[in-house]
């Protein structure tokens, strides 16, 4: 327009370029890593709430607690069938009511003080006293110090699962003196959480360097740790969504990714990374409410049969990708009592249509509620819901999807108000007795409107399973229970998704476990 302005434009242009140049320059100088020693980056999708081991009961929380603390009993590697000694060794009396724990010598906290029986008693009582999410693990159990090296856990009713419960990282032993001096008590007045979110007070392989529930937790090696020293001096556990995890591990930004779904794993290609794929501990299931006041349709046994036969399980397993399986019953394949898919529900469109015809269903809309902001091992429940909807449509059942954020939906689910629900269950401890929740009148059973006494056959089988002692007995008792549930119960086990841990080639070993997902100290 005006010749003198021509130069100005040039100047502005240069200014823009120069600014970009400056950013580019400064970018070049960032590759120096700030810390000495070897460090490893683990990407995970957080559900973290706290670093207080006695309060945490989340997947990420367990990973954190496992790295910072030790438990009285533990599992070796991924073998959860046999509890082994941790900070203590144990003995169980004959009727499974009293467990005596003898503290092992030589364990010390990161501040150098020895781990004593007082610390152990305090920690377990603290779990009970603060009335938090993990408190139920020790419900009905009395913890008492019996000598300078022993304590007893006394249960009111026989509790054979107790040795399997104790390795849970929520039952970690904290340094009593440190915790108490920071407001800690074994009651609901406990105020040590804030302190434990900033520093660890444990005897585990790592110490807490920094903790941010939203973004990342950083661990540094505990020099006082008495076990095998971990291979990495520093671990960064970052909160990263599954898709981003995949890009990060491919680009070498992280060394371990925990939440890739099978599709993503398939895309990674095994040339740059190592993929460890195994069935996870989670079981995704459909529940059909048996309470006629909630739904006359879903409480109809024929309709229930139609749904069970109408779902194409293979298609869902296919959707979930390699490594995932159809659980035969509600107990995942990892545990005693699990049954094979061939013993579970089978897809049979003709049978479904026949059952539907005799149920009197007239094509009414049936609402399927599910949380849409949850992924299980990277698999979104929404995909499963959409798949189920399409399959049931083929046999003539009209499902309407009703997604909601999990927080909103939990209320309806836990109060047994959902007509059809799509949820998943992660075991509280690696023992089939945890799955008795899926029987009439129990925790999850009630959510499906399955009241106590609603199905005497199943209830009787549950009682029998509970009473079974030897592994063989338990196996067959739980198998029978699940088959009965499959026949008449409100739960339709759909899927046990694969757990895929992807590591870069520089990692030679990771230690996975169904209870605490991954032992950060086991990364080599």
């Amino acid at each position, binding site marked *: 327009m005006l010749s003198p302005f021509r130069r100005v434009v040039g100047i502005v242009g240069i200014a823009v370029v120069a600014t970009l140049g400056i950013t580019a320059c400064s970018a070049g100088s960032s590759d120096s890593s700030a*810390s000495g020693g070897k460090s490893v980056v683990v990407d995970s999708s957080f559900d973290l709430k706290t670093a207080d081991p006695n309060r945490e009961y989340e997947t990420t929380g367990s990973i954190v607690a496992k790295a910072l603390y030790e438990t009285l009993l533990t599992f070796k590697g991924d073998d959860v069938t046999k509890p082994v000694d941790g900070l203590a060794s144990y003995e169980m009396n004959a009727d499974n009511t009293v467990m005596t724990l003898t503290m092992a010598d030589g364990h010390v906290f990161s501040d150098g003080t020895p781990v004593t029986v007082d610390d152990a008693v305090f920690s377990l009582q603290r779990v009970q006293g603060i009335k938090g999410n993990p408190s*139920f693990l020790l*419900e009905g159990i009395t913890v008492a110090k019996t000598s300078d090296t022993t304590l007893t856990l006394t249960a009111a009713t026989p509790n054979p699962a107790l040795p399997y419960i104790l390795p849970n990282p929520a039952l970690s032993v904290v340094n009593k003196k440190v915790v108490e001096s920071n407001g800690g008590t074994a009651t*609901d007045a406990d105020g040590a959480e804030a302190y434990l979110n900033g520093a660890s007070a444990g005897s585990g392989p790592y110490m807490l360097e920094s903790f941010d529930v939203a973004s*990342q937790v950083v661990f540094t090696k505990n020099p006082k740790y008495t076990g095998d020293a971990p291979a990495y001096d520093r671990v960064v556990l970052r909160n990263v969504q599954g898709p*981003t995890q995949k*890009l990060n591990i491919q680009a070498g930004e992280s060394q371990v990714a925990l939440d890739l779904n099978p599709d993503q794993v398939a895309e990674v290609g095994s040339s740059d990374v190592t993929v460890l794929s195994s069935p996870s501990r989670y079981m995704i299931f459909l529940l059909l409410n048996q309470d006629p006041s909630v739904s006359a349709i879903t409480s109809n046994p024929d309709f229930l049969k139609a749904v069970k036969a109408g779902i194409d399980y293979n298609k869902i397993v296919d959707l979930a990708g390699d490594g995932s399986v159809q659980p035969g019953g509600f107990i995942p394949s990892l545990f005693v009592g699990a049954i094979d898919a061939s013993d579970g529900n089978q897809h049979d469109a003709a049978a479904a249509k026949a059952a539907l015809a005799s149920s009197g269903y007239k094509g009414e809309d049936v609402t399927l509620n599910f949380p849409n902001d949850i992924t299980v091992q990277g698999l979104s429940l929404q995909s499963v819901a959409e798949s189920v909807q399409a399959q049931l449509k083929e046999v003539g059942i009209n499902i309407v999807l009703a997604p909601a954020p999990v927080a909103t939906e939990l209320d309806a689910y836990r109060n047994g108000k959902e007509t059809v629900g799509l949820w998943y269950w992660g075991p509280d401890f690696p023992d089939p007795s945890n799955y008795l929740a899926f029987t009439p009148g129990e925790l999850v059973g009630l959510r499906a409107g399955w009241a106590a006494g609603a199905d005497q056959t199943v209830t009787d089988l549950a009682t029998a399973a509970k009473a079974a002692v030897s592994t063989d007995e338990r196996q067959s008792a739980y198998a029978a229970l699940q088959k009965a549930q499959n026949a008449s119960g409100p739960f339709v086990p759909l899927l046990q998704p694969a757990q895929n841990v992807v590591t870069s080639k520089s990692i030679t070993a990771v230690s996975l476990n169904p209870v605490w997902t991954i032992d950060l100290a086991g990364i080599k």
Partner: protein
Amino acid sequence: MKTEKRSAPAGIPPLARYLAIRLGVTALLMLGVTLVTFILTNLVPADPVQAALGEQAAANPEIVAQFRENAGLDKPLPVQYFTYLGHLFQGDLGTSTQTRTSVATELGKAFPATIELAVGAILISAIIGIGLGLWAALRQRTFVDQVIRVVSLIGLSVPAFWMALLVYFIFFFQLKLFPGSGRLDPAAIAPPHVTGLYTVDSVLAGQWATFGDAVYHLVLPASVLALYTIGLLTRFSRSAILEVLDADYVRGARAKGLTGRTVVFKYVLRGALVPIITVLGIAFGSLLSGTVLVEKVYSWHGLGEYAFSSATKLDLPAIMGVGLVVGIVYIGLNFIVDIAYGFIDPRVRAA
């Protein structure tokens, strides 16, 4: 549009009066913000207790009762609200029902992250947007002008969340030009906390490598976020500058024989600055709300993500805290913009 503020009644210093009114309005608005958020979040047909407690704990009436009592949820709603206000007046934003950490602490972490992102984006958009707007204005009705117009409209039309993905995929994953998620290299240690802005804190601590790292991580998300505001600022500064280019004082400046550079930077840009600053303020506000979509893709744990997770997890005190902070920022922004007018325009200063 309001010009009534130009004259203040005699007796009270106009600035004091202005500040008093401003503060009063702000306080009322904040009260409104808390009330609206409180009502909205209590409309949710779900129980925050369920959202906060685990499977087994939620089935235990004792634990549930304990939780309700601790969170004050056992009281009637009006009591809850007034209790909240009471704490608020003492500077206490309450405790998150999810993490049992003080909301102020959590906001203290999330807020600087978002501010850093938004400031980065506004800087990028100011430089590029005003530059392009100036270029287009000086080349009005030429091909360049048309191209810039289309480019800026594209900037206004790109869905940020989609662009965030695309850019991440291309520049981080394919070309490996920029780092991936997060605010710093995972191996890096965050600089000592002063402002919470990594760029500022690292400079304060003299950690230049960390500063570079922080800026490096900022480039992609800030650029994506800036696209919209670049479009906005380009369009707006173009028309503001065009208007000024026609002004007598620009012709006057040229008649004085001033060089093109002086005319543009001293006369034209200054003349267009008031409307441009206004848009910058509005743009910054829109950036703040836009961050949630970009934060999600870049694992940038800022206010947007905090707001989203609090909203979906029914973390009432956290949502209220976000509402308050954001409200204050918006109002503060307008305030800053008004003050900026004063610095730029002596006529406003006098009024």
